[in-house]
């Protein structure tokens, strides 16, 4: 037997088999559900919206079947409701809602949007503004009508165009344990309006056994940095200077605010950095009577700590009866982006779906309540469900909350480090804030970020 020719044949054959095995197990391409032809433009449906309107009595994509992918990271059933409602009006459109994990969504999305096969529409979070904006198509909308019906559209203008905006607004408030409240002899009349009243209430809610805590009156161990950034506005100062690119953390106002917070622990003894060092969990586990957090905490408490009977009230202010420059800042939950590289038909349907989305008030209310958001649609400001919701009801008017713009992560990250350094590492307030300021400024200088605090409706009242 001649070894060489058979060895060569063997190698060739083996290589061919190697190549064929995976091919045999492949399944390429996507299997999208087929939509049907729509031939009925006049459906006898009402026009939606006030100034910014949607007419459902039209054909989209000429009634031809079309499929769009919609990528998002959370609560797909609330978003699916929009897709389902739209598909009932336009049966020729199939919108595939594809749920993605939040953490890696921001890795995959920009990669997918670079090609031709990325999703036609995709949910955006403004913290990733710079990553996704290059792939977004501008909204084809009447900006004047949009601004008449929605809060904060101006803040989202990029070169005079909107690529995404807010459908709901989230901000901070105080959560309190009702059982502990009653046990301390407090009533609804004791809900504090000022920070001084808050201190008193927090002291009453604190239970100590000598030097050790049994119950913290107020625990801000996880959320102090968020509270600090919000409290800033109550003093009348903006978070950024007039250029919108330099943070104003190293100021007497912020130093006083941070000193106020540390005094709550050091002087008033209503809590400790080491007692329930995760203030979210500590509140849920019944270790602390009050905590500060943003609206989303309501959903966490309902889901993970159903036995906690809690209430909410608006963050206190300096002076009773005096409206502050702003109660806090808010951040928006953004409307979806439209892929500028998607096929033209898909982009047109996406634009049509966007208008439908923004004018579907019933669905918008449900979406906002799901995340404890204040709707940005002015038509929903007086909605009974919004007014009764434990989070949105206590905020009052969203008119007194500032949106600084899509917040670069460095701001919260470094403020958090500064507060932790003060609380846990004994760093002086001056030094911690100075370090945070210089780091944030250096990071922001590398980006296109510019705060839009100047667009706040009460911006003329700012002291600094």
């Amino acid at each position, binding site marked *: *037997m001649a070894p060489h020719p058979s060895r060569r044949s063997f190698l060739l054959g*083996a290589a061919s088999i190697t190549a064929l*095995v995976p091919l045999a197990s492949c*399944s390429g391409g996507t299997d999208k559900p087929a939509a049907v032809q729509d031939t009925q433009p006049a459906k006898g449906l009402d026009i939606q919206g006030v100034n910014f309107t949607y007419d459902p009595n039209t054909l989209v994509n000429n009634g031809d079947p079309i499929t769009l992918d919609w990528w998002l990271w959370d609560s797909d059933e609330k978003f699916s409701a929009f897709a389902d409602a739209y598909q009932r009006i336009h049966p020729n459109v199939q919108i595939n809602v594809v749920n993605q*994990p*939040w953490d890696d969504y921001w890795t995959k999305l920009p990669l997918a949007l670079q090609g031709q096969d990325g999703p036609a529409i995709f949910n955006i979070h403004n913290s990733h503004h710079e990553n996704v904006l290059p792939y977004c198509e501008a909204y084809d909308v009447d900006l004047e009508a949009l601004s008449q019906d929605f809060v904060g559209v101006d803040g989202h203008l990029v070169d005079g165009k909107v690529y995404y905006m807010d459908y709901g607004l989230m901000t901070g408030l105080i959560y309190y344990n009702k059982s502990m409240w009653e046990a301390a002899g407090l009533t609804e009349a004791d809900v504090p309006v000022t920070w001084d009243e808050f201190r008193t209430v927090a002291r009453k809610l604190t239970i100590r056994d000598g030097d050790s805590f049994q119950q913290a009156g107020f625990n801000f161990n996880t959320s102090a940095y968020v509270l600090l950034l919000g409290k800033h506005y109550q003093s009348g100062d903006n978070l950024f200077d007039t250029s919108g690119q330099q943070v104003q953390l190293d100021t007497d106002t912020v130093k006083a605010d941070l000193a106020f917070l540390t005094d709550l622990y050091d002087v008033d003894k209503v809590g400790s950095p080491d007692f329930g060092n995760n203030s979210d969990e500590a509140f849920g586990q019944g270790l602390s009577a009050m905590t500060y957090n943003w609206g989303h905490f309501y959903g966490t408490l309902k*889901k993970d700590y*159903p036995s906690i009977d809690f209430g909410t009230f608006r963050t206190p202010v300096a002076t009773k009866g005096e409206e502050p420059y702003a109660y806090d800042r808010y951040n928006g939950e953004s409307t979806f982006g439209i892929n500028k590289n998607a096929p033209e038909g898909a982009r047109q349907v996406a634009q049509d779906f966007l208008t439908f989305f923004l004018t579907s008030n019933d669905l918008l209310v449900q979406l906002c309540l799901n995340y404890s958001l204040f709707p940005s649609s002015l038509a929903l400001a007086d909605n009974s469900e919004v007014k009764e919701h434990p989070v949105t009801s206590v905020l009052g008017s969203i008119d007194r909350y500032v949106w600084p713009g899509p917040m670069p992560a460095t701001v919260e990250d470094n403020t958090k480090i500064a507060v932790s350094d003060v609380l846990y590492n004994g760093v002086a307030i001056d030094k911690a804030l100075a370090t945070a300021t210089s780091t944030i400024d250096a990071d922001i200088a590398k980006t296109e970020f510019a705060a839009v605090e100047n667009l706040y409706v009460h911006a003329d009242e700012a002291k600094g």
Partner: protein
Amino acid sequence: MSKRLQTIVLEGVLLVLGVTTVFPFVWMLFSAFKPNSEIRSLDQTLLPRQWTLENFLGLQDTFDFVRFFANSLGVALAITAVTIYTSCLCGYVLAKYRFRGRNAIFGFILGTMMIPWAVTIIPRYTMFEAWGLRDSYLSLILPAVLSGFGIFMLRQSMADVPDAILEAARIDGASEIYIFHRIVLPMSRNPISALTIFQFLWAWEDYLWPYLMIDSEDKQVLAVGLTTFSGRYGTDYGGLFAATTISVLPVLIVYLIFQKRFIAGAAAAAVKG
């Protein structure tokens, strides 16, 4: 210290290490039967105070668990089968054939093991997209077709197969394909078993590449599905533990099937002589 005492001490240390290693898994297993409020409560117990099957019954609500599980199983089995075969093939060629550049090729294969996968993931993504392979199982299987580690492992093992056996087979008229499949592969069962366990585990737990490549939910794998339990504002630990508990089963089964030969392979490698 007497030998018996040494054994007792050693076994005691191993027992402590073993319990420490296994305890988190056991804790996860029992926690899968707890409601979320109990998992997050301050007062923790190993056994659930309130047993519930809700976490298991609700799995299908979070994502199509059965579908994802089946996808993972199919992809992991395909990858494992293909990798084992190509590793054996390449290992055999590098171990038993003499040709120019053999050592350079082996060196190159070893070199591929030293490049962090994260460095290649973006160009690989671009390449697969250009080939139109996104959202296909082929995109998951192709990158695993050739395993540097597998080739290295099998090459080292097959080098120990006596040349005399192969020559005897050739003299008896056996073809190269016959020799490879009927003589070399059966003699390599121990390293193949070890590689099967490793490769199946790696394919089963691979997350980022399947996540980047697969867009359709009906083709997605379980490792990606598990991450949907962690939202922006919190994690459904009960659901996550229940899903993870079930997802561990295929790996355990593969290990139980191949463990005897895996241990034999490891022992043989340890007592080389």
